[in-house]
């Protein structure tokens, strides 16, 4: 899923909010239980203090913000919803199914891949004491999520026939697939499919729900307050309370952290994060692979000169990736290999790293008759580092004889007119951390506008085949072949993957254990 998924947040928030939608599929993290931990048991090797109220700052949505997370795209909307409501499950590569289930006990897949059966965990209760049943799951998925305009919630609708979804007794839901897929658990258990009570139409502060925290206060555009839900299924949080604050500006978030107004600041700019390095009271907590944002340049294959594969290869060889990591991110980023989704299990890590070879690039350009070609790279400050990356790319291109220039749009403009964006010959963009094959399926297959002119039905077919393959070895082989064609002939330069630069007060612990690292969860967090 490329920037599209984040689109709305861009529009609303500009840079950092973007991350919000990205939520898409995936979050894999390091924890290895497939069941939520048992109540009151912090787990081996740690002894977090119980209690206290943790305050955390995010990019939110202003006074027009509502509690309806199915229509709210900011980072804060999602984090708030995850604290408040139950989750189907989270991605967890060490879990038996690659996931850690939430309100579900498990998911069975029909042999012919035509349907998924969701098994509800017995004994899960809402804060009003009522039991969670299959009706609640059906309502949450079909009536609310399917109606959402947010692309991230369309992922389920794009893969499952939600209109034909049925409850089978109190504890089972049957979801027919639209076409055979074997990786549907990874779609349903991304941590963003949240469960509320059957019949919920409007989201109100006082409504009962089944997440780790109980909402006690909400002020649009400013934040929300929570207290621990002591009867939360499985794992009861260590914290007594949680306060989520909306602070739009990166330096203001850092300022609130250093000033002691908050304990955790989400998604800082590289420069801001660097200013915190000397502060003894705080520490940086950047996200780790695979929760890295890919910075990309899109070459439009429907326009000259990028219809020529030699030109595309030349542009990829021209990039000095190491220089970008060093100069723009002070070394705090990873080198990309022109494929999105670095670090996810289905990422093709066997493909050799693309070299930096300006000589070869120049030769390719000459061969294609494109030496001295004039191009304009359009980008905007949608996520920290994008404009700086574009500036360096243009310098790299000049070194191979391209007459390149940057056009920087004001914040919020790049994706505001999507048809205009997707018709750009050359655009600087970014890719959210989402597994490779579902990203392709969502944003590149079938000549989607966000594919920038890439239209290869053989590759589309390979990806579909890989996703319908139950044998993991075979799926991996097919998936790698598909990504190889993108690497060879594709129209995307992905030179750098950058972390979400989060920072926290010393002594804050356990945030990544929530398995939703890019959008932190606080069900396992503690204060010193």
């Amino acid at each position, binding site marked *: 899923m490329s920037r599209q998924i984040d689109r709305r947040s861009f529009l609303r928030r500009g840079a950092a909010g973007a991350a919000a939608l990205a939520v898409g599929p995936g979050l894999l993290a390091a924890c290895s239980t497939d069941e939520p931990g048992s109540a009151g048991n912090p787990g081996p090797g740690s002894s977090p203090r119980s209690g206290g109220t943790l305050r955390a700052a995010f990019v939110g949505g202003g*006074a027009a913000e509502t509690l309806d997370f199915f229509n709210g795209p900011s980072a804060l909307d999602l984090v708030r919803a995850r604290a408040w409501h139950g989750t189907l499950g989270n991605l967890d590569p060490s879990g038996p199914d690659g996931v850690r289930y939430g309100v579900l006990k498990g998911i069975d897949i029909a042999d012919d891949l035509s349907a998924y059966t969701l098994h509800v965990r017995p004994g899960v209760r809402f804060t009003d004491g009522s039991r969670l049943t299959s009706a609640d799951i059906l309502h949450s998925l079909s009536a609310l999520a399917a109606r959402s305009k947010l692309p991230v919630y369309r992922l389920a609708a794009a893969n499952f026939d939600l209109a034909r979804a049925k409850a089978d007794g109190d504890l089972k839901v049957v979801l027919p697939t639209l076409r055979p897929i074997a990786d549907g658990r990874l779609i349903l258990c991304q941590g963003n499919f949240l469960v509320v009570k059957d019949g919920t139409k409007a989201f109100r502060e006082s409504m009962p729900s089944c997440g780790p925290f109980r909402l006690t206060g909400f002020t649009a555009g400013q934040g929300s307050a929570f207290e621990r839900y002591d009867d939360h299924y499985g794992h009861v949080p260590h914290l007594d309370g949680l306060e989520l604050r909306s602070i*739009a500006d990166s330096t203001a978030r850092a300022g609130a952290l250093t000033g002691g107004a908050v304990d955790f600041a989400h998604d800082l700019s590289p420069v801001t994060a660097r200013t915190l390095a000397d502060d003894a009271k705080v520490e940086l907590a950047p996200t780790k692979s695979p929760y890295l944002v890919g910075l990309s340049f899109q070459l439009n294959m429907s326009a000259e000169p990028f219809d020529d594969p030699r030109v595309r290869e030349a542009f990829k060889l021209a990039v000095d990736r190491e220089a970008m990591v060093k100069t723009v991110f002070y070394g705090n980023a990873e080198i990309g290999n022109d494929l999105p989704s670095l670090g996810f299990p289905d990422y093709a890590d066997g493909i050799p790293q693309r070299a930096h070879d300006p000589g070869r690039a120049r030769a390719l350009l000459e061969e294609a008759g494109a030496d001295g070609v004039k191009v304009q790279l359009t980008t905007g400050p949608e996520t920290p580092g994008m404009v700086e990356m574009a500036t360096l790319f243009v310098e790299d291109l000049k070194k191979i004889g391209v007459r390149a220039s940057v056009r920087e749009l004001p914040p919020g403009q790049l994706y505001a007119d999507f048809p205009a964006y997707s018709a750009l010959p050359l655009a600087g963009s970014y890719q959210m951390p989402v597994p490779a094959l579902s990203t392709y399926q969502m944003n590149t297959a079938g000549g989607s506008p966000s594919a920038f002119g890439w239209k290869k039905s053989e590759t589309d077919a390979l990806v579909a085949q890989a996703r319908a393959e139950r044998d993991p070895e075979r799926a991996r082989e097919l998936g790698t072949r598909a990504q190889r064609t993108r690497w060879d002939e594709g129209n995307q330069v992905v030179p750098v993957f950058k972390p979400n630069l989060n920072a926290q007060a010393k002594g804050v612990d356990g945030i990544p254990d929530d398995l939703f690292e890019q959008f932190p969860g606080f069900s396992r967090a503690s204060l010193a």
Partner: protein
Amino acid sequence: MNLLAFAARRLAGAVVLLVLLSAAVFAATAVLPGDAVSAVAGVDASETQRAEVRAELGLDRPAVQRYADWAAGAVRGDLGRGFVGERPVADVLATRLPNSLLLAGLTLAVTAPLATLLGLWTGLRGGVADRVVSTSAQILAAVPEFVVAALLVAVLAVWLEVLPRVSVIPLGGTPLDVPDALVLPVLTLSAVGLAVATRLLRASVADTAARPYCEAARLNGVRGVRLAVRHILPNAAGPAVQALTLTTGALVGSAVVVENVFDYPGIGRELQLAVAARDVPMVQGIATALVAVMLAVLLLGDVCARLLGAREGHGR
């Protein structure tokens, strides 16, 4: 013409201006590239989905008709709902506008007396003091607000640590609950406003001081504070009030910047968010409200100036 007739005429003028400006705002949002469809439908929406959303938002109708509908609603006091989040525009105004007005009010409370004093001092005294103050004011007026903000933050919040860096308002509270969080935003706005107002006032004072009746008073031995209070101030007050009302215009623009820097929950920040999302009803509602506030302040300024102007020549 008596004062009431004057005020009525200016009010009518302001209303016409408000209508014209609200139309201009609408036209401006209409020519921005893109529309709320991308924001609402998401970018991977198909053409059909986009068309549905466009119809749902009423964006498929001609701009003139959309404006007419909006204006008809606005006259009845219904500013509609935002496209994004679908909150009533009036609700957003009700929660955010008071915060911005508080900021503006405090700023005026700081700048008005200070600018008056500085204006009088420099306008009457001339010489080195005048040149120093006037040049400083000119420089300050030319420095962008965010630079002033950054300097104030660096000194007062980071170095001296006497003020909070960000206006973190308690949930459900108002900015008045944390008065120290108001200081940096007000100081920033005041610095910029003071520079502008001082220069305008200085000119008015110098002008008045050169009038024959002031000359006469001075020849009669009236000096210093007595001259300023009895003779200059009453006569410079009219233009001075107009100068101050003009700075409120600049205040609105500065507030957008300052609210973002300090993350202050004001209407300027909401306007910026709404523009980025192409949320036309929200942009339209907020911009029109801001224009209305400005026109009201200008009207008030004109009436005050006229009241004070009637004193012309008093104290002779």
